[in-house]
């Protein structure tokens, strides 16, 4: 792939993401009807659901990048893991903030120790720790392999954390879209579903836009390092 196309692609992605975000916001805030029980507060779900899904995708990419790095030792995979972790922390934090804003009028509290909330908070802590480990380890190749192991351990731990906090307490409403007994479109007003879908696409585009920027940043850093190396 030529340099020219690589430089242009992310920008196009960014513009498309912006368009989708505008459409998604219009659809979610104006077009979709208010929720029968929760009223307008429910509209925050149009951001909340896509952001948690992108956060999960991030942590999956950290896992994939970490495995690939330990296997093949390619800088590219390490940069992928690092970038995905950073963006993942961002989206997890967003998810928690949105959840709080929604929780206050709906549940009457900013924070409650329900299983999914706790899991999300723990994820944030794990990957904040991951970033901290990276920044506090000076030797780069050592930081990369330690972080890769931590990325894998963290990912393996998620089902266990999920199980433990779920047994511990469950108060959260059951997942509102994917319910095993009914098809999604039977539960929800079609306009609401469309709003979620559009916002989901918008967040995915935004996510990959940010990721491609962050990947390029990582690669540029490496190139600077390499050129300094060859100059001596």
């Amino acid at each position: 792939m030529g340099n020219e196309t690589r430089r242009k692609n992310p920008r196009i992605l960014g513009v498309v993401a912006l368009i989708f975000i505008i459409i998604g916001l219009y659809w979610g805030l104006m077009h979709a009807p208010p929720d029968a029980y929760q009223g307008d507060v429910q509209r925050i779900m149009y951001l909340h659901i896509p952001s948690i899904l992108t956060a999960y995708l991030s942590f999956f990419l950290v896992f994939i990048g970490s495995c690939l790095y330990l296997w093949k030792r390619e800088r590219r995979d390490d940069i992928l893991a690092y970038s995905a972790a950073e963006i993942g922390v961002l989206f997890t934090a967003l998810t928690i903030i949105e959840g709080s804003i929604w929780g206050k009028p709906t549940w009457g509290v900013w924070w409650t120790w329900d299983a999914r909330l706790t899991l999300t908070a723990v994820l944030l802590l794990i990957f904040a720790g991951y970033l901290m480990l990276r920044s506090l380890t000076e030797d780069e190749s050592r930081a990369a392999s330690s972080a890769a192991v931590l990325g894998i351990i963290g990912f393996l731990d998620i089902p266990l954390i999920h199980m433990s906090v779920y047994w511990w307490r469950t108060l959260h409403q059951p997942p509102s879209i994917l319910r095993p007994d009914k098809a999604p479109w039977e539960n929800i007003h079609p306009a609401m579903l469309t709003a979620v879908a559009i916002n989901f696409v918008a967040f995915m585009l935004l996510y990959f836009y940010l990721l491609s920027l962050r990947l390029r940043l990582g690669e540029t850093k490496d190139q600077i390092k390499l050129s300094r190396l060859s100059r001596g």
Partner: protein
Amino acid sequence: MAFLKQAGLLLAKDLRLELRRREILLTMFFFGTLLLFVFHFSFDLAPEKVLEMAPALLWLAFLFTGTLGLAQLFQSERDNHCLDALLVSPLDRGAFFVAKVSFNLILMLIVEVFVMPLFWILFNLRSWNLMPLLFLITLLGTAGFCVLGTLLSAMTLRARARELLLPLILFPLMIPVILATIRGMEAVIRSGGLAEGAPWLRLLVGFDVMFLTAGILMFDWVIDN
């Protein structure tokens, strides 16, 4: 066979060094006892409430003393560049990991064997009959702590501010163990048997086995330069 022989050799070396200096064991034990006093002063619990709180307080004490021990876990290898001496040797990295986990586990169990009865004495608890079952759950939880703690301790070995960093990355990952041990012990105290807490025990065993395997497989990526 060679794997176990190497692990045994290393464990014997660490135990011998610890018997000579007793630094880690004594500081851990002293700190654990200190925490019990601090808990007693800060909570001022009514006797009937104490038994309810016992699992949480005990585990807080174990978690903190354990972290203290983890920070010292590779001390004998840090002196005199002995870590390099081990890394240039034909030592299997998995055996190295198993030896350090066992060493850490033995230290923590020794401390716990003393601190737990001390808790019962200091807080005037009577239900001594529950102690074996509670200790069984503690054993499983401590094993999980040691397995993951050893791996992360090696990970932070060459990081700046490693003593501060270690609990920051370890504690979030330990949440299944913390929840499972405390809830499991509560179930034992409530019902007097293991049946009620069985799911928590299974979770603990799963955690221990999973991360022990992961550690043996991945330790060389963490410890090698």
